């Protein structure tokens, strides 16, 4: 199960689908959304949480790894999500 450890960055990877089993074996790489096909059948798109070492390991397998959100930014996002949970919310005001 993924967690919110500060070392996890949000990454997107383009990989050969045959690598999926090897990717799953990488420590601190948590696949978040199931692999999605791309127009190129030899490439799947995977979004994941990964620390630096896991990103390096994925690159070594041949995946293209893009950091979408840094570990620091992701940590802040999650901390914000948990801040004030359970407190009485402000009345609905059509905030969007």
């Amino acid at each position, binding site marked *: *199960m*993924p*967690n*919110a450890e500060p070392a996890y960055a*949000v990454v*997107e990877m383009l990989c050969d*689908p045959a690598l*999926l*089993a090897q990717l799953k074996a990488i420590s601190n790489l*948590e696949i*978040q*959304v*199931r*692999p*999605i*096909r791309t127009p190129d059948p030899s490439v799947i798109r995977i*979004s994941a*949480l990964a620390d630096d070492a896991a990103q390096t390991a994925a690159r070594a397998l041949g995946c293209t790894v893009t950091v*979408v*959100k840094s570990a620091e930014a*992701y940590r802040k*996002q*999650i*901390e*914000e*999500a*948990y*801040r*004030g*949970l*359970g*407190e009485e*919310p*402000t009345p*609905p005001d*059509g*905030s*969007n």
Partner: protein
Amino acid sequence: MPYLTAPQIEARMAALAAAAVPAGLCVKIALPVATVSEGIGPTTYSYLKIGNGAGAGRITVLAVAGMHAREWAQPDAVLSFADKLLRAYQGSTAFVVPAYTDTAGNAHGPLSTPAATVKRMVDSMDILLLSLANPDGRAFTQAAMANVGWRKNRAPRVVAANPDTAGVDLNRNFNIAWDYELYFSPAAAASTDLSASKDAADERFIGPAADGAASQPEVKNIVWILEHHPVTYCVDLHSYSMLVMHPWGIERNGSDATKTFSNAAFDHLRDGTLGNAYSEYFPNVAPTRLLDRHAAIVGSMRDAIRAATGRTYTVGGIADTIYPATGSFTDYAFSRQFTVAGSPPIHAFAAEFGDVADHFQPSYTDPHGYPRIEREVHALLLKLLEAALPPAVAPPLAGSGSKWCIFSMAVLDLAAGAAWLATLRQGRTVLLGHRWTRRPVLALERVYRRAGRNLCPLLAQRRWARRLIAYTLVAPAASVTARALRGRSR
């Protein structure tokens, strides 16, 4: 303002129902089955029914959110949708999705649904909103930061020593190709492309084999909704990946009417996305053109989202767009039109909101986080309601110029009616163009109009009679006409 907790969502629904005028405009309805969870609950939870009026001829629409525990944004957005819809209706104002300026400084929106349309929506439809389909899962994810990625419900663990074996993926537990090893060939069932698992520790766990499909209380509750309301339009709201989809998820879409999930002759043979030998039948014949209509609706949803925030979502069939998945809500709701006798056409959709940067808990305060997702959810839901809305005025048959058109009256509150009438109009035009058929057609129309003067006032008051004529006369006539037109064009 933080995300709402499960108890706060219940309280918010109660407040909306209590404040709604007239009484009955918004009702909070408790679901019949309490959750059975590890360390939480049992929890009883509810959904909202918004609609002013009762009786025959109403369209029922269902939106489901929060089925996956970690996807926090959609439940809040569905509740704010309910609030804005009620305010617009009660205040006779437009429903406005506010303008949005993206990170590059480009302005999008606002989108406005006129007050008259909002009134028609609420007056002619029952709008069911299950804003939180997995309350104990949400409570678990919100209890500790370490739980932030939990997807399943919190059903008691299968292996006592392994906490990951708690829970079932609710969106793999519905009774549609649930036992994927029966539905698929061994190769397809074992494919990494398939999003379903019999491993209790997997986040896509379909549920214990001994319990069968639809074993989970949360799934039983959704099935209960479908069995107690004539839902003909529905959507399941998820995150993330920027997708708007329609069935099928179990397989790619096909046109061979023998290849259906219920045809046991194909058990253990279906090839999933490994090949093209089998594709699940998606009807697309006149007059309903069900696949075309689904494609048109997801296209309109994509366009509305793009107009609201500038983001372009990908559209298509679930298996074609994302991955094959068995036991999902969207496929199950869609499949009921083939398994429930006398079912009208059912339109089912699924959406994945946001992108990888939004992740599962987009920032509530960042205008490019939750507020953007909220606009997208509202834009999609408004399009769903628009699609389900019966025509304001039944279109008369071209050339008849008569308000006494029996066929128009018969399909007045049927979504497919406009397509049936359009087909008949084409056929009429062809017949009027031939020397040998023109006179009989015109003579027949005179009789038809005279009969219409007597029948239409009666039909207006009797839904069963409209349905009878629609399904025994209009739909077959449109179908025959469509075949004749196709034959003529060849």
